[in-house]
């Protein structure tokens, strides 16, 4: 018996939290819970534990000890890590090599606990929440080249590999991203990485006019100038239920504190930034707006603040995440404007909305709008007196039926994060 096998045979189900440090240990634990039919909460480090429905499982599987970079091939543009590796560790080594995760991971730590906590790679992949560059470069799922994991029976499974083009078998990497740990326990993930652009600037365009803002988003989306981020930060409503944070969060030398603004980012070398800026000035008719420009030293932290959802830091209210077709942006802005604290990302497609505690009927109103306009809504953070009767995630009946079948094919006894996304799954 190898040392590993000896260790595995000693795993008992007496404790309530397991902290495996190898894939075999994960498989052994799951084989045992499978035979005893014990539901289990699967966590990376727990940084996004409060997303979805609260779980009532007695047992927890924490993957934070399954950590470390397995292989980083800069010239092959991939990094292979154990699932419990802190996302920050990955970003650090990429940064040292002038590379990055193009999908711009969101730091949910500010929203949840008031300070940075990016969690693990596995946890991030399981949620599939891409940052500002999404509309240009794809989501988290578009950057997963392959994975290894353990299914609900304790079998170690893998899919994909390390190369960009691979159509061997079903693309399970897509399925596990955004599955909130309900299909398989991830043990190893290979991510596609990208070279960093040399520099960047952000152009701030001030306007309170919703129509003009949504027109700007449309023109940016239609442009060939490769704008790599576009966000609208509106003035906060004068309402005691919301904390006024905008002025504090977006405090930059070249950003006017007053009023609503749309910020868009241009990346590249200096010549190309200047060329694009010149072109965009014409395309977007920027002379009809009051504008300012954030240089690279302001632009980088600006987008970090956007992606850290810093304007919602420590909020006790509900936080909703809504995605709609970009052409519906103006309508949605009309619904939210001056009534809610919110901001827009993904060039008019992604809305982050704060709804005050005890105002659950407003969530209904927003959800109704989003569904009618063929979008989807996730209630990410729930306030203390949360009493919303509908689901936290959006789904229709046929997709739920298909999802149940897929769930069963991975986790036949329904042991992983039961009811986390949908009560039936």
């Amino acid at each position: 018996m190898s040392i590993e096998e000896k260790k595995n045979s000693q795993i008992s189900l007496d404790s309530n939290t397991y902290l495996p440090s190898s894939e075999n240990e994960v498989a052994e634990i799951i084989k045992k819970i499978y035979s005893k039919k014990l539901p289990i909460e699967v966590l990376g480090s727990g940084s996004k534990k409060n997303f979805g429905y609260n779980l009532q499982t007695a047992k927890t599987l924490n993957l934070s000890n399954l950590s470390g970079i397995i292989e980083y091939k800069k010239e092959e543009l991939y990094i292979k890590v154990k699932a419990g590796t802190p996302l920050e560790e990955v970003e650090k080594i990429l940064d040292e090599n002038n590379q990055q995760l193009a999908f711009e991971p969101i730091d949910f730590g500010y929203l949840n606990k008031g300070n940075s906590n990016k969690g693990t790679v596995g946890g991030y992949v399981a949620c599939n929440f891409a940052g500002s560059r999404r509309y240009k470069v794809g989501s988290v799922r578009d950057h997963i080249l392959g994975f290894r994991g353990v299914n609900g029976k304790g079998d170690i499974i893998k899919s994909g590999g390390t190369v960009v083009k691979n159509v061997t078998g079903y693309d399970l990497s897509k399925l596990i991203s955004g599955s909130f740990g309900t299909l398989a326990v991830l043990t190893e993930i290979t991510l596609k990485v990208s070279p960093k652009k040399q520099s960047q600037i952000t152009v701030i365009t001030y306007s309170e006019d919703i129509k003009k803002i949504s027109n700007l988003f449309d023109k940016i989306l239609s442009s060939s100038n490769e704008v790599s981020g576009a966000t609208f930060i509106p003035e906060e409503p004068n309402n005691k239920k919301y904390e006024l944070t905008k002025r504090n969060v977006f405090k930059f030398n070249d950003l006017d504190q007053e009023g609503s603004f749309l910020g868009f980012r241009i990346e590249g070398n200096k010549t190309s930034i200047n060329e694009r800026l010149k072109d965009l000035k014409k395309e977007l008719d920027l002379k009809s707006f009051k504008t300012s420009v954030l240089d690279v030293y302001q632009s980088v932290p600006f987008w970090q603040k956007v992606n850290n959802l810093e304007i919602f830091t420590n909020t006790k209210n509900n936080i909703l995440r809504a995605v709609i077709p970009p052409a519906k942006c103006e309508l949605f802005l009309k619904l939210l404007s001056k009534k809610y604290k919110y901001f827009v990302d993904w060039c008019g497609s992604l809305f982050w909305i704060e709804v005050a505690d005890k105002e659950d009927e407003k969530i209904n109103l927003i959800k109704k709008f989003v569904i009618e306009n063929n979008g989807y809504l996730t209630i990410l953070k729930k306030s203390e007196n949360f009493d919303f009767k509908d689901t936290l995630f959006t789904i229709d009946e046929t997709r739920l039926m298909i999802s149940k079948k897929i769930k069963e094919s991975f986790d036949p006894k329904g042991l992983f994060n039961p009811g986390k996304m949908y009560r039936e799954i």
Partner: protein
Amino acid sequence: MTELALPKIDKATVSRKNLIVSDLKKFTKEENILSENDEIKPYETDALAAYKQTPLAVVLPETTEEVSKILKYCYNENIKVIPRGAGTGLSGGALPLQDAILLGLGKFNKILEIDFENKCVVTQPGVTNLGITHAVQHKGYYYAPDPSSQLACSIGGNVAENSGGVHSLKYGTTTNNILGVEMVMMDGTITRIGGKTLDQEGYDILGLLCGSEGLLGVITEVTVKILKKPQSVRAALIGFPTIEDGGNCVSDIISNGIVPAGMEIMDKALIDATDKFAKAGYPKDAEVLMIVELDGTKSEVDDLIKQVSEIAKRNNSNSMKLSKNDKERLAFWSGRKAAFPACGAMAPDYYCMDGSIPRGKLSLILKEINQLSKKYNLAVANAFHAGDGNLHPLIMFDGSDKEQLRKTEEFGAEILKACVKHGGALTGEHGVGIEKRELMCESFNNNDIQQQLNIKKSLDEKNLLNPGKVYPILRKCAEEGRVHVHRGEEKFPDLPRF
């Protein structure tokens, strides 16, 4: 044709042919059902022409409801169904079965909506890949994935195969460029996955469908993303005296943080073949030839092309041309685009392989292929999407000689095994189909394959949709001990084992 094991023929279904054909007439116009031998002959193969099989009948429905009714009927009557787009697939994914209905989507040939506001096109699956670009190019837009068969291949087939093309490194493959589909499941259920929004919530069913080779559902509508054409595009045509120099240059370009729109490599055999065929003016002294295409703003492209030419010089390039205009750029591509017909002119038949490897292993794999070429005494020419590691060796042979065909297939299999050995994949963009089914155990073990079969079973529990493709648990795998066939009750009960 070499011997190919296919699912057991359901003789009862074959004997009911007339009844089935007459039943099908209830669901679509009579003229949409083909059952006479001369009518169904054109459907007996796809672009993997070494394998042929006439189906029980061919049905060419016109609406989603018709597809739904036909599938529901087949589900109730236990009749197998093979979906087919334009039939340009290279891995035999649309090969018919004797006891199966071939469901052709050729009449789904309309673009339903061009939505510039949401930057997408809603189209029926039978529209060609290039047809989408043609519909939007007047406003400066295009659809990014560009498989070499884009003139003929259908977008539905692209979804089924997750097709790529020469620009995948920068712009991704089909899966990264579609927003939604309408799909009919084997039991006739019609469903929509995704729509006009980015991503979808819950399980990424769209991601699962894309590349599932027609095994999970029949696509009846696709919503694709369209992009604005880049402002400036230039290409460099660079020759290298050795394979190593070319390979090193590829890695060096990527390591320098450059992401070209396309980066192609051709070996000596292909340079000679295409130059004779297309008179592209390729350098005679190059052992490998590279085309690097860069796009972006004008000054950015000029700067990048300068960087690329410097990197190439550092890697001992012995010839270099930089395009000054689109005409020159397209001339660089003319030879590469003629690669397949050029090989067709050199031998009675050619067999196009499709493996993926890490970019850094390029020279290693090319050397191995050349050794194998000597071993099998068959000529080979290599085209390589170097940017994304996708290799297309073209093996030249005479299909009328059965022994040569057998040797060709063995040669091809050895190349793919070498790709996997070097950390790559069995197929980069052509799919597994029937062609690489026997090699699945090179990449996957029993657990991996079983998980995939469980998904198949959960969405098509009777195994009626495109059976015999991609996944059977194989004799070869089992014999070599890599896949253990045991506890048969867990697998598909009807799954053929051979």
